[in-house]
């Protein structure tokens, strides 16, 4: 599979989804052209909308990583929303009751606390997968519902600030402890943290033995076991790392945007992360532009609502169509193109027989021994 194809096919899939969306919008009685113009204007048409899009992209990068890291180990985790809201709750509690005298210490402890609880939450799904053989997709989604229930319980119950009347919240975090702006941007620090994390994850996955081992675990758990890798640790560890990213995104939302933990945390960012990771083909660096794109579409949703009186679910429909198209495009990856090219131009496939041969268990374990 060449790299051009890896870029072109997802783009083609998104283009197809956009076409379907235009058709859908037209059938629903809205002017498709106006919808797309507004989508562009609302997402990237002005510096204000750019800031709005980037502000939304910041948590989305992290929730995308929350899916992409376990995916390296062959796991489909879709419960990032739960880890995210609990990370936000932890940050809200630490920001108020923790070390408030030093803003820097408060900020660091809020972010670490959020990441920690997220790691435990999704790490549990990894444990259930390894120790009890429970499908991680289902368990992580159930854990998300439990996490959201816990947030609602604490925010409306034991941790409720009596002064928050309309919207039950935890007490507000002191102004001094709130996160500042990313240097050079009018967007909070979360953007910088997200981008840096994406680069770190990319580097670890691509250039270290850590990333290589994880790939082996994802590719063939039996081979990994034969090679002496403790599969369970890798499964739980990758889930915990993903959960940490989701928890961190929730903590950032509280420490930079909301200023207190409340139901605003249940924003769907965790769910959008699934789409983003799949669109980016689980590549941490590709997650950054995709998150900005999806954040932009989300930012433009409000504009569609105000200007054309469209339902707020419009952007979910577009996201859903893009998601389906991206997944289905997997089927045209690889061989068919070459076969077509071969038939038309008589081009020889450029893969050598050696590269085509399936990697056997023995080959994988010798590879690992070499490492």
């Amino acid at each position, binding site marked *: 599979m060449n790299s051009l194809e890896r870029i072109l096919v997802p783009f083609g899939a998104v283009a197809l989804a956009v076409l379907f969306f235009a058709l859908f919008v037209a059938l629903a009685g809205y002017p498709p052209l106006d919808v797309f113009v507004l989508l562009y204007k609302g997402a990237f048409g002005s510096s204000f909308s750019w800031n709005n899009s980037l502000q939304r992209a910041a948590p989305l990068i992290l929730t995308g990583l929350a899916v992409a890291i376990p995916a390296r180990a062959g796991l*489909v985790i879709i419960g990032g929303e739960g880890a995210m809201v609990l990370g936000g709750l932890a940050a809200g509690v630490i920001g108020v009751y923790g070390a408030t005298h030093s803003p820097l210490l408060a900020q660091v402890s809020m972010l670490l606390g959020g990441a920690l609880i997220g790691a435990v939450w999704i790490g549990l799904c990894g444990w259930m997968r390894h120790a009890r*053989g429970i499908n991680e997709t289902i368990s992580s*989604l159930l854990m998300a519902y439990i996490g959201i229930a816990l947030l609602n319980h604490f925010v409306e*119950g034991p941790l409720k600030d009596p002064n928050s009347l309309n919207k039950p919240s935890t007490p507000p975090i002191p102004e001094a402890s709130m996160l500042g702006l990313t240097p050079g941007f009018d967007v909070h620090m979360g953007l910088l943290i997200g981008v840096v994390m994406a680069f770190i994850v990319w580097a670890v996955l691509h250039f270290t033995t850590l990333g290589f081992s994880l790939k082996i675990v994802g590719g063939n758990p039996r081979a990994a076991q034969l090679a002496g890798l403790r599969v369970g640790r890798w499964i739980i560890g990758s889930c915990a790392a993903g959960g940490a990213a989701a928890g961190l995104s929730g903590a950032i939302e509280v420490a930079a945007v909301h200023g207190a933990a409340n139901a605003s945390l249940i924003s769907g960012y965790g769910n959008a992360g699934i789409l983003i990771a799949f669109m980016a083909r689980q590549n941490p660096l590709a997650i950054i532009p995709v998150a900005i794109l999806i954040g932009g579409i989300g930012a433009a949703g409000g504009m569609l609502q105000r200007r054309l009186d469209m339902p707020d*679910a419009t952007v979910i*429909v577009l996201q859903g169509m893009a998601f*389906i198209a991206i997944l*289905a495009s997997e*089927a045209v990856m690889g061989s068919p193109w070459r076969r077509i090219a071969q038939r038309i131009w008589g081009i020889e496939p450029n893969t050598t027989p050696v590269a085509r041969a399936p990697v056997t268990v023995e080959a994988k374990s010798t590879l690992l021994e070499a490492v």
Partner: protein
Amino acid sequence: MSVEVESLGWLGVPLAVFAGAIRVSTPFMLVSLGECITEKSGRINLGLEGSLVMGAMAAYAASLKTGSPWIGLWAAAGVGAMFGLLHGLLCSLKRVNDIAIGTALMLFGTGLAFFLGKPYIQPKAPNLPSIPLGAWIDNPQLANALNVNPLFPFGIALAFFLHWAFKNTSWGLKLRIVGDSADAALALGYRIIPARIIATMCGGVLAGLGGAFLSLYYPGSWNEALSSGQGIIAVALVIFARWQPLRCVGAALLFGGAGALGPALQAAGVSSGYHLFNAAPYVLTLLILIVSCSPTRSLQGAPGELSLTRS
């Protein structure tokens, strides 16, 4: 409901849980029976949550437009079949992961239902009638608890039928072979992909009907917070039920009871842990999965082709 429970005080809680087991269990039962058919064919459809929400919306809209809740049921079944067909076709493509497609259809189905269902949030559509099985009992609370919806006996009958049909009909056997071993099915000359697509469509129909129950019987209205993951819980229930239709009914009743615990306690005056009690079904699902799954042996009764139970 809540008024009657209040008059009974604490004694009302077990009664409400019993009534809830009957009332709340219906969508769990229908969706899990549908998923049972789909998984028997060797595929898993996580997108049933999307089919369920779409079914709820379609049923409500159709009932409102035509004035007949029964036409609403047909609409829900049709929409569910379409979503099942979409899942079945997409998963028949090469290298397409059924779990990921299910997740995408979950997002798409809920988004589409919220988009198309916006105009139906306010108006009141005619609901399904209930069958007063308890009319002969003097105690009004108990009689009320036995007011069952028409989809409940349908679900029970369907479970018995499937239990019989999986073993005793030729298509039941075909379905099981396709799900257990694609190689064996090929050797016998069965067409695997059409069988799986039809099985997924059946699952979609039942998920749509489960959604119709939500919007046309209990709670009996359409809004965006209607489903709370019934579609996804039902998928987990099938694992717990070991792919046996009759056990699906038992599991659904258990979950209906757990789901009714929160509202019942709230009605009895316990308001503090409301959200926690509402999370009871999810916790229960996880605990049941932890107890019933095993990392070392494949699950008893699991279809061999199912990606869900890969190790």
